[in-house]
């Protein structure tokens, strides 16, 4: 029963974040002619696919809990490549992702190693955050904590959907920046 509640909560959270993302565009572009119409259309399509499309698995996939430890590693390495070496977000995420995708080659029979590339890539998205938002390393660490929790809980949801990792990272960064805004008001 509790598991089902968590499922519903995560789906609702993702929907709220996506609608928030779209409505931020909607509010800013109210003056232009076609953008608000496009946004409303997108919202309707989103709701329809949430209700009808078969994007969730019924089964609960077993997952190693220790896998979450690698999200901060990916996030920190991407953060330092991005801001320490000034490589830009795309190149640093690309380097982290490419390196991580060769990890399963170490031991091809290990199921644990097979899940690492996606985890690293999810962390790399957090590291892509701009300096004006992620002002310190602690922000990245807090965001990767939230991303870890979300990734573990949403294991069987949105399975195989492109952009799932990005949505998880975005949700985590949004929650963290909201908390940081509440704690240290600028």
């Amino acid at each position, binding site marked *: 029963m509790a598991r089902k509640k968590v499922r519903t909560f995560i789906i609702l959270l993702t929907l709220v974040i996506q609608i928030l993302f779209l409505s931020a565009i909607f509010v800013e572009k109210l003056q232009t002619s076609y953008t608000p119409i496009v946004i409303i259309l997108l919202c309707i399509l989103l709701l329809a696919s949430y209700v009808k499309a078969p994007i969730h698995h019924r089964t609960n996939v077993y997952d190693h809990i220790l896998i979450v430890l690698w999200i901060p590693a990916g996030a920190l390495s991407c953060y330092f490549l991005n801001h320490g070496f000034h490589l830009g977000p795309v190149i640093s995420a690309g380097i982290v992702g490419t390196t991580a995708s060769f990890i399963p080659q170490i031991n091809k029979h290990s199921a644990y190693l097979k899940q690492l590339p996606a985890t690293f890539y999810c962390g790399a998205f957090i590291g892509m955050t701009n300096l004006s938002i992620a002002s310190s390393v602690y922000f990245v660490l807090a965001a990767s904590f939230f991303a870890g929790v979300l990734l573990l809980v949403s294991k069987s949801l949105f399975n195989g959907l*492109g952009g799932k990792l990005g949505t998880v990272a975005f949700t985590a960064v949004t929650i963290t*920046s909201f908390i940081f805004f509440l704690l240290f008001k600028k």
Partner: protein
Amino acid sequence: MTAIIFILTAIIAAMVTFYVNHELKQGPVRSSALLSLLVALPFYFFPNVLDVSLSKNIPVVFIGGSFIGMASKKIVDSYIKLAISGLVFSVIYLNTSNFFNGYGGALGASAGIALLSVLSLPFFTPKKHHLTNGILQLRKIIFKRNKD
């Protein structure tokens, strides 16, 4: 003009990533990361060849489009759907709000929105043929005979 280039970039990125992911069997993470790295490096080393706004934004649009191509075959089966969702993604990217500017994962979130909204399209299109099951079976048998 720049808008058309961004739309084309996103569509190409989604399709190429899907191709490398499933036809060349490289896995989603490597196909997305390696392709966007290959696209981003030339723009990093030669930033003045193209226009400044182009060389700044094309890698970003490409990595966002490649997130769409990371989808599994169960979710997306045709390249047309990928192309449409690439188009939707670039429309979202061209209108991104300043509020969420610089958030990590904003690209991934917009890619997810683009793909999810395209997934609901089949529910709105009317069914093309109203053939019964028997006629479909018959047609299958006839076409099989013709092949042999």
